[in-house]
């Protein structure tokens, strides 16, 4: 096979690609931060809430986990403007694709994070809660001061795996024609007829970012676990 690589395409399109990467990272950071926050709330509702609330949460989690993410993104893109128009009463309201994508990612990821947090809380010995209660702490104080700090330490690897999965999943926003990193790269590659170079470059960037994330998690876990050699 005689293929002459031409990497100049990537250099010329650098600013455009970086814009795409920015969009990807924005989706990732918002998805992870809000996803974990909402997921934690869901997990607490599911484990400690009154029965109807727990059932509702279970339903929510099952719903979002059963639907392909690509479909969720598509739905939000199509339905959010209409729903928001009804909610706000403004018939001319428009919702940018970025907001539809963010809403879809956060709500869907929250379902996944909920399950991780639930497993994390479950990994803390039940005696810890009993010890807290026996000292007079409330359930809420026990959760925030004793159970969750340990749970988050135990689930760092799972949270990181989910984050890496989300980084890759953000590329699904191409269904609503967003210019995330992959979307931008595909466009450049097709325009210049340099798809091979562009795809190699994109793969390398995803690889580097994911590896850096893995390393960071390992480092964090060591720092977070004093007293465990």
């Amino acid at each position, binding site marked *: 096979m005689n293929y002459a690589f031409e990497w100049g395409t990537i250099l010329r399109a650098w600013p455009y690609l970086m814009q795409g990467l920015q969009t990807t990272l924005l989706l990732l950071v918002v998805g992870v931060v809000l996803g974990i926050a909402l997921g934690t709330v869901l997990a607490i509702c599911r484990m400690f809430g009154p029965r109807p609330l727990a059932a509702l949460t279970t339903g929510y989690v099952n719903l979002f986990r059963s639907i392909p993410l690509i479909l969720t993104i598509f739905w939000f893109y199509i339905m959010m403007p209409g729903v928001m128009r009804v909610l706000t009463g403004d018939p001319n309201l428009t919702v940018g694709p970025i907001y539809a994508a963010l809403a879809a990612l956060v709500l869907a990821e929250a379902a996944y994070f909920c399950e991780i947090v639930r497993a994390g809380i479950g990994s803390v010995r039940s005696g810890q809660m009993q010890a*807290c209660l026996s000292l007079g702490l409330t359930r809420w104080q026990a959760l925030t001061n004793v159970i969750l700090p340990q749970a988050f330490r135990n689930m760092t690897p799972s949270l990181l795996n989910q984050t890496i999965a989300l980084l890759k999943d953000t590329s699904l926003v191409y269904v609503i024609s967003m210019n995330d990193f992959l979307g931008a790269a595909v466009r450049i590659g097709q325009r210049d007829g340099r798809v091979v170079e562009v795809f190699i470059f994109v793969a390398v960037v995803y690889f580097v970012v994911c590896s850096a994330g893995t390393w960071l998690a390992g480092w964090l876990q060591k720092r977070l676990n004093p007293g465990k050699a």
Partner: protein
Amino acid sequence: MKNGDDMIEIKNVSKWYGDFKVLDDCSAVVSKGEVVVVCGPSGSGKSTLMKTVNGLEPVQQGEIRVADTVVTDRKTRLTALRSRVGMVFQHFELFPHLNVLDNLVLAQTKVLKRPLAEARERAMLLLRRVDMEAFSEKFPGNLSGGQQQRVAVARSLAMDPMVMLFDEPTSALDPEMVGEVLEVMMQLAREGMTMIVVTHEMGFARKVSNRVIFMDRGRIVEDCPKDDFFERRDERSERARDFLDKILQH
């Protein structure tokens, strides 16, 4: 009925897990300053009975009172009661993400609202009492089982409890560490602490306790002074004799 010296009163308490009756019409009284050992075969309900005293195990029938607080009254604020009833667990249950000092400080500041400096001072005083002051900056994972259990006792004492409950405090320990924990408990007993101790350490029961309660299948079968329990064996029920034979054989 209410006697000034009664610290804990358990009256006709029954509890079910589904169809299974874990506690069957249990009644007992513990006076102030008394040390009561609860023993019996595993699954006899002794830990469950003790955990009803601070409301960790709710009961379906009967009444439990600790000092002036009716534990079984739904209106009772259990957090206030629990802060005055210390509990020591079989598996220590220190908070692994906090160092020894912070383990003792947490509930003092959150529940009793003590200022941090005062809570620390109280914590160090109690660590000294269990001979663990040199370890205040260490994390639980770096301590031996015996050391962890002594810290756990100190953590409970930091709340100034009026009663201490011990749930098999030495059964998860290596044999050479049992003594140091029992020593701390004996010292507490000598100082007049009211204690309920679920244990298989019959040596401790003989030496320190005032009374022995023997349970079997959710019932209190024996409740008698320790000398009667150990020395007048022929007056005991068959089940208690059987249990004693097995446990004292070795």
